[in-house]
């Protein structure tokens, strides 16, 4: 279980996270939706421990990770798998080497077993035969899928997805969502998915949280969020430019 209590984070005096409270039950997939630049990626980086919050706690399996340092934090990270927004593939490695990397470094595994596992992982994301390609030779979508294979190959107990389907065509988007759902059914990980893909994201999530101005505005099941009477949630779901959600250009004009 992941529990986030009163999480705050500022950069140069500007508050990005303003008291986030969120609870993700074991084995649940929580989608976090919200405006671009609303602090969703910052929230993920706090959970990974790359950023330290100014205030608040992040409790994973009963341990407040904001108080952990060094090896203790690494122990918690062993449970995590992270899919970064741009894929974060290592440029100097091929697709095969990228996917094999966490296994080779973290688990003692035979060459043949490693080969089978990596080939299967690449096949699952529709990249069979692409083992020798370098990230520079791949399209954005291919890179994202290699990164997804790398994230899931260690079968982590908690998986954090930072916009896993942004930039993918509708067919790939749905197959990636299906893959996340299938892997979730097989391994039963707890997941947090940051996404803008509405309404597709509702199909793979058990709960949805709407983040606005650094705080969670509403949490509920996909159906509850779809039926929400909160005008901000409604505006976000319909994508309307008219409503209470502040447009960035309006804000900038006022400055």
């Amino acid at each position, binding site marked *: 279980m992941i529990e986030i209590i009163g999480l705050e984070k500022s950069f140069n005096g500007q508050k990005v996270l303003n008291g986030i409270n969120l609870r993700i039950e074991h084995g649940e997939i929580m989608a976090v939706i919200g405006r671009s630049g609303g602090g969703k990626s910052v929230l993920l980086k706090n959970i990974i421990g790359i950023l330290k919050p100014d205030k608040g706690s992040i409790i994973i399996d009963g341990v407040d990770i904001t108080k952990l340092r060094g090896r203790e934090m690494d122990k918690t*990270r062993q449970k995590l798998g992270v899919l970064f927004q741009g894929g974060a593939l*290592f440029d100097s490695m091929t697709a095969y080497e990228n996917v094999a990397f966490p296994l080779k470094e973290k688990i003692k595994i035979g060459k043949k077993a490693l080969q089978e596992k990596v080939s299967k992982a690449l096949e699952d994301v529709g990249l069979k035969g692409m083992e020798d390609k370098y990230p520079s030779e791949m399209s954005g979508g291919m890179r994202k899928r290699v990164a997804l294979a790398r994230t899931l190959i260690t079968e982590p107990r908690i998986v954090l997805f930072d916009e896993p389907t942004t930039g993918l065509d509708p067919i790939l988007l749905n197959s990636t969502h299906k893959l996340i759902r299938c892997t979730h059914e097989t391994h039963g990980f707890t997941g947090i998915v940051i996404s803008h893909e509405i309404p597709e994201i509702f199909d793979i999530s058990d709960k949805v949280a709407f983040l606005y101005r650094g705080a969670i505005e509403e949490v509920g099941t996909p159906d509850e969020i779809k039926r929400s009477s909160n005008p901000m949630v409604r505006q976000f779901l319909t994508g309307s430019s008219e409503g209470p959600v502040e447009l960035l250009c309006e804000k900038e004009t006022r400055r």
Partner: protein
Amino acid sequence: MINLLRRLGSRALSFLKRMGHMLMFLLNSIYYTFVPPFKFRLLLKQIRFFGNKSMIVILLTGSFTGMVMALQIYHTLNKFGSEALLGPAVALSLIRELGPVLSALMVTGRAGSALTAEIGIMRISEQIDALVSMALNPMRYLIVPNIIAAIIVFPLLAAIFDVIGIYGGYIIAVKLLGLSEGTYFSQIDIFVEWKDVKIGLYKSISFGIIVSWISCYKGYFTEETGFGAEGVSRSTTDAVVMSSVLILIWDYFLGSVLL
């Protein structure tokens, strides 16, 4: 007046803070150098990276430095009738000073800048964050192999620079200016001592640490200098300028202690 003092104090504090941060980065790297698991493959890759990137430029600058020195020193020595000392003059200047310093400056421009840019791009494309999220220490994977590789490669490149420079001087002295081949080499053999080679060696090792440390640090914290590509470009420039200045300052201090 108070405002001026406050501004000066704030600048001094921020400078000290940055220096402390850089020093902690170096100490952290030294700590991980001695803590297993060791990444020998990455070390070999980085030795190749430094050597391969800088070899041609070292050969070119080394030979021309030796040639220029022979040409200039010959005319000075000629006035006193001491042309026989041309070989030792070229060899000693190269072994004790110019070899380590110039080769370090060349490697800074060639491989040090590439290293900062590479680590900087890894930082902005979240590759370093990916390592952290896998519970793998970036210091062990990115920084330590570079520092050890530089400690190994810098003295080797300086030695190549010295040898090529001495042969560059030989071409000018013997083939162009008519000095006897025996005089050129026998005088080098008499005057150059093991102590001189050791001075060059110590300098090269310390320059290796300086260049790899600054280059890695500037790339690793590229976001402190600016955003995205602009940040990487700025940190690369900073790394080259800072390494070059530190090489010359450290050369003076080490030279005055070792002499």
